């Protein structure tokens, strides 16, 4: 292990640390926002008013992808 690898390890570790730290502080700060538009109206649905006249599922076809296994794959 040379010094270049050590620098790389430190740089990589700090970049990873910054990303994780940003996610943590963003989650902590998200509690400050509580005003947001309500895009659904689910609480105003009339009970038992959802009725289906038609519920049909039709088969449309099949597609198969094939991939050659690597030579050293033991499976």
């Amino acid at each position: 292990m040379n010094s270049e690898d050590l620098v790389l390890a430190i740089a990589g570790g700090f970049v990873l640390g910054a990303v994780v730290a940003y996610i943590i502080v963003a989650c902590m700060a998200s509690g400050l926002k509580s005003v947001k538009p309500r895009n659904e109206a689910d609480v105003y649905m009339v009970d038992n008013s959802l009725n289906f006249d038609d519920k049909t599922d039709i088969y449309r076809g099949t597609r198969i992808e094939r991939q050659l296994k690597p030579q050293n794959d033991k499976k």
Partner: protein
Amino acid sequence: MSDLTSFKCPCCGGTLEFDSKSQKMKCPYCDTELDVESFRHEQDDNEKNLKEDEHLLEEVQHGGSQFSAEENADMESYLCQSCGGQIVVPKGTGAGNCPFCGNPQVMPANFEGTLKPDFVVPFKLDAKAVKAAYMKHLEGKHFLPAVFRDENHISEIRGVYVPYWLFDSHMRARMVFSCENIERYEDSRYRYVKHIYYDAYRKGVLDFADVPADGSSVMADDLMESIEPFNPEDGVEYLPAYLSGYAANRYDVDEEAVRPRVQERMSRTMQTEFEKSVTGYDRVKLKSSDIKFKKISAKYVLYPVWLLNTTWRGQRFTFAMNGQTGRFVGNLPRDDAAYWRTFALLTVALGIVFSFVVYFCMVD
């Protein structure tokens, strides 16, 4: 000039206010309580007097210069029934307090005829509950400036009857969903991924009741949507007495203007509900949708909302509380210094840990 209505205490002559706890009219001076219904005849008398006064006013000559039509278009003036002071308010104001004597006043003319609400949901919670909810709202908030925890920082708390449109609808829809199941298997030479495709057809109906949209241009739509839902079952017939002690506005955004937003919300929910019925697949995607509103009708109501204002570094923050359920919302400011300090400390701490992890992974 139009007339105001204030409700006088029969015992001491003080101005009565609607009390959210007892759901009665209460005198703040002698604590006399009266049923709201007992003020119904006053409303009838006021309406009669108002018409007579309008007739008389045609013959009155006023001194001073006249307001232009444009200036008059945005304001209305009233005489306070308690002190006689002239109150000028923005057009559409339905209730408020006299700036001279502080007594609650109701402008019943703003809720007459087609402007009369179908019903009103009276306040269930008082200003004390708002303060308590505000303090609770601040609890456990990271990066909140410390000054916000000081109750004295609140600049204004107002109970407002906000005009809402409530929509009932009967909807019919036809939707097609593209569905896919994925199977993976392999033999000695190959790996296979099998995609099996289906189309799911759904046709059906769904009803909505009392979907709200605020009819006030002053109120931020997202703020009003955030304090939903209200329970319209607590609604009572509109009587001006309910407005006493609170601010109130009549609608200035009509039913037609808010309908697209309500239809958008209902359509989205219908799509969600239809999608929930498509089960047993790994992937489901909407392919086509045809939603029709077979029947849609609107009611005009007044809902109780508490508004709380506060300022910080010259910026105004508005909080709202559902005056019926107590749901409290409002965006809080972020202490940027604390935010970036925490970010820097976490970056250093996690950076050291991850550097060791990366280093040992490379050594291995």
